[in-house]
């Protein structure tokens, strides 16, 4: 059974570094005044139009196996395929910023307000990740509340389209989770509407199950390696974030 999660606007405020990084700008770069003005305007607009909300549904390893299998397009060997059978708790999730953000981005591009459109797009991508982080933290809190978090529990999320989990996995994920309840629909091509949405599985289990090596076929083609930072953060004992068992 799924649970709809209210997310406050101040919970999805994107980090400046993430917004700049999404546009290839070093985090400590001092922006020229015109660019700084665009950054501030995009930030203000995002705060005004974003309507973040999430949805979460716990499921068993066997149930997730069916979701993960999707239409059979996953690569034979993937990180998620190896991690989830060793997990202790799993939850499907989706989070969105709502339709207005995407409308604003499209409208700005169409009117040639390109810098603003790209800045808003970058800020919204970072904010959508923040919304997914909120859902992940709520799942952790729920596990803690009923004593299911152990000292060695590590929690990370994974999404279709990444790490060898074929994008067609969205089909079964949507059937199980029904994110339509929070206004997210799935295109025939498995992309979500609104575009600034994130979906996937949150996997909780012994922290070391997430510590996979970048030797999978999908890793050799991946140039972002965004997983590395998340894994390092998870396995860092001094990590103050509540993604590790307490």
């Amino acid at each position, binding site marked *: 059974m799924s649970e709809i999660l209210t997310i406050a606007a101040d919970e999805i405020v994107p980090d400046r570094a993430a917004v700049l990084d999404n*546009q290839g*700008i070093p985090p400590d770069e001092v922006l*020229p005044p*015109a660019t700084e003005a665009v950054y501030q305007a995009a930030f203000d607009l995002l705060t005004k139009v974003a309507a973040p909300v999430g949805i979460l549904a716990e499921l068993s390893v066997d149930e997730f196996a069916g979701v993960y299998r999707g239409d059979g397009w996953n690569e034979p060997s993937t990180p998620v395929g190896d991690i989830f059978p060793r997990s202790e708790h799993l939850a499907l999730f989706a989070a969105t910023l709502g339709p207005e953000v995407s409308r604003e981005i499209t409208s700005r591009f169409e009117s040639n307000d390109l810098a603003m459109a790209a800045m808003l797009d970058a800020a919204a991508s970072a904010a959508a990740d923040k919304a997914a982080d909120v859902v992940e933290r709520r799942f952790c809190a729920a596990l803690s509340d009923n004593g299911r978090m152990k000292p060695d529990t590590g929690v990370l999320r994974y999404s279709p389209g990444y790490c060898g989990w074929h*994008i067609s996995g969205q089909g079964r994920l949507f059937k199980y989770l029904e994110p339509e309840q929070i206004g997210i629909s799935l*295109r025939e091509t*498995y*992309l979500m509407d609104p575009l600034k949405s994130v979906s996937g599985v949150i996997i909780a289990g012994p922290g070391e199950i997430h510590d996979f090596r970048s030797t999978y076929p*999908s890793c050799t083609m991946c140039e*972002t390696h965004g997983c590395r930072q998340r894994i390092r953060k998870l396995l860092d004992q001094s990590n103050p974030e509540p993604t590790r068992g307490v």
Partner: protein
Amino acid sequence: MDLLEQISEQLISGEDEQVGKLTRQAIDQRLPAQDILDRGLIAGMNVVGARFKAHEIFLPEVLLAARAMYAGMDQLKPLLIEEGIPPIGKIVLGSVQGDLHDIGKNLVGIMLKGAGFEVIDLGNDVAPERFVDAAQKEGASVIGMSALLTTTMPMMKNVADLVKQRGLSGKVKTIVGGAPVSAEYAAEIGADAYGFDAANAVDRVKSLVNVA
């Protein structure tokens, strides 16, 4: 500084209103449209492209300059049409099916326009048939594809294959780009070129249409 140099300078600074005004002034002074385009707008965008390539400026500055270029083009376009000055090439551009990432693709489109190309931007999540149909319908000589996901990259091969199936090889060239894409992958799927960043993509497209 002559008027065309002023247009170029204001464009580099992203001053869209000024570029629009100065372009109007150049038209009113009956300067040749081709000169206004080449020595004013494109010259400015070339500087912006070079500075971006050298990491002296970043995406927002390029986009502010692009908006200024469009302000100039809005004034100049009717004259270019009237004088029968064609674009240096026509390209169909899009992010492949299943891929919503389009900042890189948009930047390539902007820089191609700045270099004098006509760009038909199909957006994101573009099916192979749409790429090839659009190229045929518009008479484009290049199809540009972008992907940010390893899981959507195979769609690029579907487009390259479809170009061959329709007997368009040689007439319609393909160029691919995006974070997980490489020159090796481009060769493997039979694409004609690979652009490792937006500036490089413009150079490669120019080569494909023999204007380098």
